[in-house]
């Protein structure tokens, strides 16, 4: 069983986390620290256990071994929005919360993601980008100290994705939770994170500090160099031509 130390402070501290599925060791003694308010991106090829690590931090997987110290207030946004289709948008936002002024809190959170007008809509009437913003509002309304993002932009089209990334950057700058962003997208990681981690062989294999001023630009030569580094680490050899692969899967 995972020992979840709940008295842990605002940051994340994981020591020797091991998770075995059948005879496959997915996580093999992972050590991970995230400072309060730090934005960390977790990269890795498919099947390296990125989501497994995120689920362990969310407290959704009690089958691993090791020490996990996470803040009490956590929120998760998944690749799919996972809204309950039979509950109105605002009820989805405050799902599981108690208190008298739930509607007001839902409205406030929805206003932050620009969807105040859709509070009474059914989730099935929303577009993919809107649904994902509602999922963000649902995370925000919990004022999380740790925000876990599991490829939250993976299912969005390119344009919507850019907007959603900018929204996440804004919200993070305003609320300053610690963030763990699981992603396949090297550029996304470098645009948003303070630090990019590479998960490989069941461990954090490499760490890339992203010491670029915000807002960041894809054209920045330092950005390009970091990106080359990261792609290299992911085992994707960047071709010499200007057109470079973006995805690792």
């Amino acid at each position, binding site marked *: 069983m995972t020992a979840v130390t709940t008295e842990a402070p605002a940051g994340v501290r994981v020591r020797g986390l091991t998770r075995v599925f059948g005879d496959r060791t997915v996580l093999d003694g992972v050590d991970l620290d995230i400072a309060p308010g730090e934005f960390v991106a977790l990269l890795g090829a498919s099947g390296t256990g990125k989501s497994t690590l995120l689920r362990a931090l969310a407290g959704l997987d009690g089958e691993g071994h090791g020490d996990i110290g996470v803040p009490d207030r956590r929120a998760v946004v998944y690749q799919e929005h996972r809204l*309950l289709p039979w*509950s109105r948008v605002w009820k989805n936002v405050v799902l599981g919360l108690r208190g008298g002024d739930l509607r007001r809190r839902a409205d406030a959170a929805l206003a932050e993601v620009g969807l105040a007008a859709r509070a009474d809509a059914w989730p099935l009437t929303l577009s993919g980008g809107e649904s994902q913003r509602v999922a963000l509002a649902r995370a925000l309304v919990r004022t999380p100290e740790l925000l876990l993002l599991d490829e939250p932009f993976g299912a969005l089209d390119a344009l919507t994705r850019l907007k959603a990334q900018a929204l996440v950057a804004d919200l993070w700058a305003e609320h300053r939770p610690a963030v763990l962003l699981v992603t396949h997208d090297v550029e996304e990681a470098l645009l948003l994170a303070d630090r990019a981690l590479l998960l490989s062989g069941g461990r954090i294999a490499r760490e890339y500090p992203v010491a670029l001023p915000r807002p960041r630009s894809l054209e920045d030569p330092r950005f390009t160099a970091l990106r080359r580094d990261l792609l290299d680490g992911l085992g994707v050899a960047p071709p010499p031509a200007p057109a470079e692969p973006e995805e690792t899967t």
Partner: protein
Amino acid sequence: MTTDLLDPPRSSLAPTGVRPVPAWTGTALRTLLRRSRKISGLVAVLVLWEVGARAGWLGSTTPPLSQVLDRGAAMIGSGELGSNLGVSLVRVLKGLAIGLPLGLGLGLLAGLLTVGEDVIDAPVQALRMLPHLALVPLFIIWFGIGETSKVGLIAVGVVFPLYINVFHGIRGVDERLVESARSCGLGRLGLIRRVILPGALPQILVGLRQSLGLAWLTLVVVEQSATSSGIGFVINQATQFMRMDTVFVVLVVYALLGVATDLFVRVVERRALAWRKGLVAR
């Protein structure tokens, strides 16, 4: 009837023009055409029946529609249809009142609790394979020829479809929704109330529809023998005396009961599943 559809009164046009579409008259006309197309098949069958019976194509034992309608009106007037229909309805309602809660309860237990599944599912699945109508003789021996055996058999019939659909509806709820609701801090009861039951509801309503259909079927069978009231009794008597118009009246009543049941479930679905996109558009 057909002329009504081609040249409807203004009042019947209004509800079709609800959507604020610029060319709303065009839309209204289209829905109207669509509806008349849907009805046209039924009308054709009824006309064929009337004409065919009068011309003798359908044999001497098939009365024309008009005669059946006359007979139906007479039976309503004399109270014969009403009183017997009342008896039959009470039988079905009693059977449903026992069978539906039982099917729902067992389905919930088996769907929500692993213990419940282990204990309940295997015996129910085994019993389900037995056509419940084969139990008619057994029920008559056990409970006599009175109401108990009839109501009991209707109850048994409706348990299984509802049970199966409740069980599978619960098990079919998207695991990812459950997980995300759990990470939102929902407890076990909250999960059941906010996620699992609403998620299973479409399937539960399918089960309800099947159960209601089976209730009517069972009613037909249990009223075939050893009864002195009910619409099954009416049709039996009529067959013995070759009152074919009465036989057809009862058949029409059976059909209407089925249609009414279906409409009822549809109304329930429309209200309970309003979140579905197709229904929300209105």
